[in-house]
């Protein structure tokens, strides 16, 4: 819908600001809840008689500091960020974060490479079997991960021909994740490549460029938004993955953020809610930062893919 011309303030509030406010509350409330839980003491979390929206001990400590014009980091630490400190100091959280980033980045790069080449071939080149390839890639989407992980752990435990075991190794996940990332990247990028006019490449090729040169120097730069959005998408999917990471990794030091947090901070009868919530928030920050830089590209990337 175009610009809201001639709408009254009341109407604008009703049809624009109010719904938007509703959506923001809807999406962000759980994050507020995680944050509040992460700065409450365990005792407060389990007290059903106090207002759960306000972390009493923490706000009291802050209020005292503001009143007394005195800043005390340790008081803040004891009353507010106790769980955060536990998470960062007494668990391997930082290590998990590093593992997650490493695994997500490498598997994204691998998948993007395979996705770009395959998508270009599917979008531009006519060769026998191109349609079959296209359908196959779509179909691989459908293969349920719950079906894959036993045979996959078989494969990863004893890599064909090489006889390496990649179980309990970040590389095992890097090998496993492209199974769902490559079909996705290919699908998104095929659409995107189709939006780029063929004439540009053809002109370059008449000027003496080879097809590969035309692809790398002409098409790829134009497809950058699409590549960025596919990359972000792939990064998110691999950073969120849970099942393979749970099954394939056994050392606490090799775990990813979701698995590390779940297996180290849920101790049977006892949930470490504060640490769990702090971990959930901290664990999503790296991806969030990347998104905030690229969100426009991301939108543009999908836009392109759709036009195709």
């Amino acid at each position: 819908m175009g610009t809201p011309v001639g709408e009254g303030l009341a109407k604008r509030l009703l049809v624009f600001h109010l719904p938007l406010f509703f959506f923001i509350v809807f999406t962000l409330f759980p994050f507020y809840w995680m944050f509040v839980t992460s700065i409450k003491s365990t005792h407060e979390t389990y007290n059903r008689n106090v207002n759960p929206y306000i972390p009493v001990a923490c706000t009291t400590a802050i209020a005292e500091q503001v009143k007394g014009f005195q800043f005390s980091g340790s008081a803040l630490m004891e009353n507010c960020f106790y769980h955060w400190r536990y998470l960062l100091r007494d668990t391997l959280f930082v290590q998990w974060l590093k593992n997650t980033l490493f695994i997500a980045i490498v598997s994204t790069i691998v998948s993007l490479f395979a996705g770009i080449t395959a998508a270009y071939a599917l979008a531009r080149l006519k060769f026998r079997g191109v349609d079959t390839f296209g359908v196959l890639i779509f179909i691989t989407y459908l293969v349920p991960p719950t079906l894959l992980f036993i045979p996959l752990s078989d494969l990863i435990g004893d890599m064909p021909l090489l006889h390496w075991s990649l179980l309990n190794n970040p590389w095992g996940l890097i090998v496993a994740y492209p199974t769902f990332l490559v079909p996705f990247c290919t699908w998104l990028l095929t659409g995107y490549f189709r939006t780029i006019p063929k004439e540009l490449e053809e002109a370059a090729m008449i000027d003496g460029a080879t097809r590969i040169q035309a692809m790398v120097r002409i098409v790829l730069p134009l497809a950058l938004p699409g590549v960025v959005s596919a990359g972000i998408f792939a990064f998110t999917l691999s950073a969120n993955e849970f099942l393979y990471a749970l099954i394939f990794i056994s050392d606490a030091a090799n775990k990813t953020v979701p698995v590390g947090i779940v297996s180290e901070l849920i101790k049977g009868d006892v949930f470490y809610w504060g640490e769990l919530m702090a971990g959930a928030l901290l664990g999503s920050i790296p991806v969030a930062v990347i998104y905030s830089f690229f969100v426009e590209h991301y939108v543009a990337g999908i836009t392109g893919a759709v036009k195709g």
Partner: protein
Amino acid sequence: MGSLEPRCPVARGKIGRMEEKVQRDAGEEVAHASLPPSVEESAASCLATIRTAAWSRQRAIGLLERPDVLGYLLMLPAAFIIFSFIAYPFGWGVWMSLTNKEVGMSWSRVSFIGLWNYVHLWTTDGVFWNAVRNSFLYTGIATAVKWVLGIWLAVLLNRMVRFQRIIRAAILLPWIIPTVLSTIAFLWIFDPDFSVINWTLRRFYTWMGWGYVKGPLWLGDPTLALMSVTFVNIWRGIPFYAIAFLAGLQTIEPDLYEAAAIDGASGWQRFWHVTLPGIKPITVVVIVFSIIVTFSDFQIVYVLTRGGPANSTHLFATYAYQIAMVGTRLGLGAAVSLFMFPVLALVIVYQLVYLRKEHR
């Protein structure tokens, strides 16, 4: 072949422009290595050497110019990954579903039982149809709600001028955060004794003077439990829909709206006749993708209910996991996983047909 070239410095000027280019590409480094030319070598044989080298080089490039060769070459990485890490496991899964294989069972005891697993699920299994029903409800409701709310949110985001970037990034948060972790937060939000929703409801009731209310059992009531897991899926999925639709909205030519406005169309009519058709291509793509992902969803149910209470929230994936991974009946579990394959294949076929139609 490059190593032959430096011996023939005399031949340099005589070869064609194309060949020289090839030589430069291929043998630049070697050309600098100043091996003294052998006296006996004739210029003619030298030229022939170069011609051969250049020709095969050119042939290589020529081959790469052929769409079929290049096509296969470019498909190679993806094909390698798909065939080695999906095709084999998939084939394995299909084979398992036709056997009585259990975890760790020695192969001598594994026997081929045809479609027995499928027949068993269809006719006798007392949970399977629950899982089918739940999967369809879960996918259907979640997709419909995400679709409607996603478009709505996209329209709002598209109108927004101030704080655009930060709001868009914030809206995306539910989709970014690792699902398991956000679902654990929901486990706490839905906790029967500590639910913040119920606390709020209780306060509201007391405030209104309606007396005491314990609040709904979000995960304890069969219908509510299914709705609760669906809700989490919706919460998580809306950002993806909204951003994709936002992208779709930006592809619509503003002229169309102006034309519609001139024709006197109301806002609602403009939405119906311009916006919706305009984002149809992305709608198809997003919904197909979402249906597939939602249909095989695992994490949310696994964390919140593990399929309980009384199997009211089991989905295909969680039930397959329970049977195969926990109950160790791999064959039967594989059959559960594969049961949904035809359904999803239909969705994919629809999308392919649609895409092809759009292209013509």
